[in-house]
């Protein structure tokens, strides 16, 4: 050891004893230092990839073109208004080359076709990552800043949602996620403000609990609170994972806090008549209850609509007298319900309530035994109801609806990793954090109040995608790129007819002037489309169109005067200015024109592939049957529809066939001769 030290000292003395030697050594070191920079540059990753790329294209047939397109060195996209400095193309050299479609090795794959140009948006706006970095590790995984790594491919649709606040046809996952945020009431606790300063509005229908003791029993509330999914497979209410004592006390409070409604106890005639299951079932079918309500069948599938609650075990829930009062007029109990007021007779009410009441599950409440509630339990129940924020969704007497109950999520997609507390063993990225939180919220702390949902993996992924779209960047993007969500429609039909439409809840299924559901046809221009007698007959007995559909228009049993009022309102108000419905006559066409129309229908335009005029011969079953279309639609509407179906009903799948005026005229004549039997006889 000593000798080594001595040797070193003598060596350095020999080297540095002379100033010229010192100068020589220092010059050499300077030279080395100067050489490091170009050497580092020469051995950089991107240069290595560019050389690989040149070798890759060298032997191809299109080598000359590709070589002409190739630019060496660091390539950069700089978009100041988007905050983009992307050097990704330094390695991903072939992103724009359509002829490289067959190359599958990265980083040389062509970018799959998308509606945006690379030089207008850059890369990180969609893919995240560090655009300015020039090494793979730093650009993709952000090893130094640890803030913005690449967005995994499965969540890529989130990036579309930064600008597109309306549903896009190409982003099903994002659209589903946004629907789930609204449908499962996520946005009731977590407010979400979008860059266009609109908010996501919930679409679920949590019932008020003001009169709950009239409707159901404390035992049912207890079992429901313990596990909503055990009552209804399609329940939207999540599981709060309450202890037995918590569920006992909350149910005690809700029953004690309930205020009786006079109407609910009045129907005491319930047990007087024995229910007739067959007649009840057929009334349930005729009334098309299944358009909104689902029932779980023996195979475990939930069959029916999802507008109203599932009715599989409804008999174990509701009290018979309440059910009758509800069926008579649902709005007395819940003024915001989507359930229409059917005009059933007393006899029908008994039949239907008897049938619905028979849907019971004896096992459901078999193990629920509750002692009478004590004042202490009730007081504790009230405290729990406040703690868990039940009043955020449900109207509860004496409890104020809390504001901002849970953290706002308007920018959750950019939440800094430093602010997140990860579970041990989970990947430390934002998408993984959000997905884990959606999957099992209480895993992040037993004291957390967020309930447990029973989402499928697809739904979790969709929700994570929708949440990841709520980024800081979406707020700083220039306004010209923002595609705002349409404003919430507030259309309200006026007068007595408007009140009638509110009672029948037409808007639950039909859309009029931008407001309403999408299950049934848009009625904004119904008055221009149909003939008055048909509309009146349809409201009386709505069973003529599309007989194979499961979800159909219910029969409301309207009185003659109510029907006349609705029909008048529709025919007068719901018209389009573009169509004068009296411009083309309803009948008396020349036989030649009708025959010409028939030829066109069956040969040139082959309408029979989707429609039926002669049920014995035509089989097409996509569009509605046209056997009686001459009694249903106005001639002018048919003519305009043929000329451009999408202009009459945006989004309809009947293609615009560029039919010329003469052909459209002949087809209209042919279709207008397809009258209902009664009308044809009357003419003879």
């Amino acid at each position, binding site marked *: 050891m000593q000798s080594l030290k001595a040797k070193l000292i003598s060596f350095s003395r020999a080297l540095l004893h002379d100033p010229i030697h010192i100068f020589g050594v220092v010059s050499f070191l300077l030279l080395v230092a100067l050489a490091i920079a170009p050497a580092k540059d020469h051995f950089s990753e991107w240069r290595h990839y560019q050389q690989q790329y040149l070798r890759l294209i060298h032997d191809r047939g299109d080598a000359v073109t590709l070589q002409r397109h190739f630019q060496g060195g660091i390539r950069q996209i700089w978009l100041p208004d988007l905050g983009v400095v992307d050097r990704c193309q330094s390695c991903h050299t072939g992103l724009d080359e359509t002829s490289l479609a067959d190359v599958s090795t990265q980083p040389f794959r062509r970018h*799959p*076709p998308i509606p945006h140009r690379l030089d207008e948006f850059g890369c990180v706006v969609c893919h995240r990552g560090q655009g300015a970095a020039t090494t793979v590790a730093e650009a993709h995984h952000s090893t130094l800043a640890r803030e913005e790594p690449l967005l995994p*491919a499965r969540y890529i649709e989130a990036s579309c949602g930064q600008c597109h606040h309306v549903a896009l046809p*190409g982003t099903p996952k994002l659209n589903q996620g946004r629907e789930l945020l609204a449908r499962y009431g996520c946005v009731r606790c977590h407010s979400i403000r979008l860059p266009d300063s609109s908010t996501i509005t919930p679409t679920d229908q949590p019932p008020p609990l003001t009169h709950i003791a009239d409707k159901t029993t404390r035992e049912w509330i207890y079992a429901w609170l313990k596990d909503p999914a055990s009552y209804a497979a399609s329940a939207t209410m999540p599981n709060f994972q309450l202890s037995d004592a918590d569920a006992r006390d909350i149910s005690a409070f809700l029953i004690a806090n309930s205020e009786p409604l006079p109407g609910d106890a009045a129907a005491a005639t319930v047990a007087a008549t024995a229910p007739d299951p067959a007649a009840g079932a057929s009334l349930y079918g005729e009334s098309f209850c299944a358009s909104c309500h689902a029932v779980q069948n023996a195979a475990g599938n939930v069959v029916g609509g999802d507008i109203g609650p599932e009715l599989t075990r409804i008999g174990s829930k509701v009290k018979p007298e309440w059910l009758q009062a509800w069926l008579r007029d649902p709005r007395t109990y819940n003024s915001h319900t989507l359930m229409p007021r059917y005009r059933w007779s007393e006899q029908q009410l008994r039949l239907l309530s008897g049938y619905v009441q028979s849907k019971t599950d004896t096992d459901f409440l078999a193990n629920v035994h509750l002692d009478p509630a004590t004042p202490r339990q009730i007081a504790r129940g009230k405290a729990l109801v406040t703690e868990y924020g039940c009043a955020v969704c449900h109207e509860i007497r004496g409890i104020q609806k809390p504001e901002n109950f849970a953290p706002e999520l308007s920018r959750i997609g950019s939440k800094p990793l430093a602010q997140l507390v990860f579970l041990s063993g989970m990947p430390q990225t934002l998408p993984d954090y959000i997905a884990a939180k959606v999957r099992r919220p209480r895993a992040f702390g037993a004291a957390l109040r967020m309930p447990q949902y029973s989402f499928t993996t697809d739904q979790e992924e969709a929700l994570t995608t929708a949440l990841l779209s709520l980024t800081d960047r979406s707020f700083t993007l220039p306004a010209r790129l923002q595609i705002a969500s349409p404003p919430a429609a507030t259309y309200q039909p006026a007068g007595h007819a408007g009140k009638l439409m509110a009672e029948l809840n037409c808007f639950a299924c039909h859309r009029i002037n931008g407001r309403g559901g999408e299950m049934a046809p848009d009625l904004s221009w119904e008055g221009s489309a149909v003939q008055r007698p048909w509309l009146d007959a349809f409201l009386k007995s709505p069973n003529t169109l599309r007989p194979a559909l499961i979800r159909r228009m219910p029969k409301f049993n309207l009185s003659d005067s109510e029907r006349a009022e609705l029909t008048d309102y529709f025919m007068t108000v719901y018209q389009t200015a573009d169509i004068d419905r009296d411009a083309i006559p309803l009948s008396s066409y020349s036989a030649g024109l009708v025959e010409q129309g028939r030829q066109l229908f069956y040969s040139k335009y*082959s309408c029979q592939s989707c429609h039926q005029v002669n049920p014995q011969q035509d*089989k097409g079953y996509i569009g509605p049957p046209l056997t009686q279309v001459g009694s249903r639609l106005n001639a002018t509407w048919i003519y305009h529809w043929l000329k451009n179906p999408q202009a009459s009903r945006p989004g309809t799948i009947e293609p615009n066939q560029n039919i010329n005026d003469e052909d459209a005229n002949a087809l209209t004549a042919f279709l207008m001769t397809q009258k209902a039997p009664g009308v044809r006889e009357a003419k003879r």
Partner: protein
Amino acid sequence: MKRLAGIFGTLVTLAAGCAHHPTSTPALHATATGAALVESSGGKQLGTPGTSLAQPLVVQVNDAQGNAVAGAVVEFRGAEGVSFDPATSLSDSSGQVTTTVTLGGSAGRYELTAVSNDKAGKEFVLKVTELAAGYQEQLGFELQDQYCARCHDPESSPQRVSNYDNLAVKPHAFTDGETLTKLSDSDLTAMISHGGPALNRSALMPPYGATLSKSDIQALIAYIRLVADPPWRVTGVVDAKR
């Protein structure tokens, strides 16, 4: 001496760790061997990049006589980015092995292989294709679901009754590569835009040129090319490697 033993111990642990690392799953011991692999279900699914496929992939191990073999080891392999859960498994009592496939991050066709060993220790394989739709193919899928599938898909579902059987001239399923691969992109575009008569085919196919945009039609063709069976182009495959 003590220190030396410590260092030695550490080295042994490290070496063991390194040796163990590549096969983190415990080795499975085959109790039987088969002679062939057949696909039971889960092939040719359309998924999205980076996502698990909706249905699991199920393959069956058979012996030379075609009888199911239980207890044979099957290993799944795919291109970079593809993962299997589980990647290696023993066939169950009905000879089947079930795995969940997660596709890689890029769109395209994925050729996966299931591998097992026969009595002599020789590998035999089964090739399975899965599809990952990029933006354009995804849009094409949505559009065909809305506009085309009612006639072109012979299968009915509870939500939609197929119109296929009602048509005098039967439309081609989009997976019918034999027919559709013979049509060039411009022929397909002409047919979608101007209807069947444009290529002297059935007038039951109406024109969509005034209803769908140019990019919509491109997306439809991209979808048709992706799902074509046999594949539209042999190239462009995400190669299977270990």
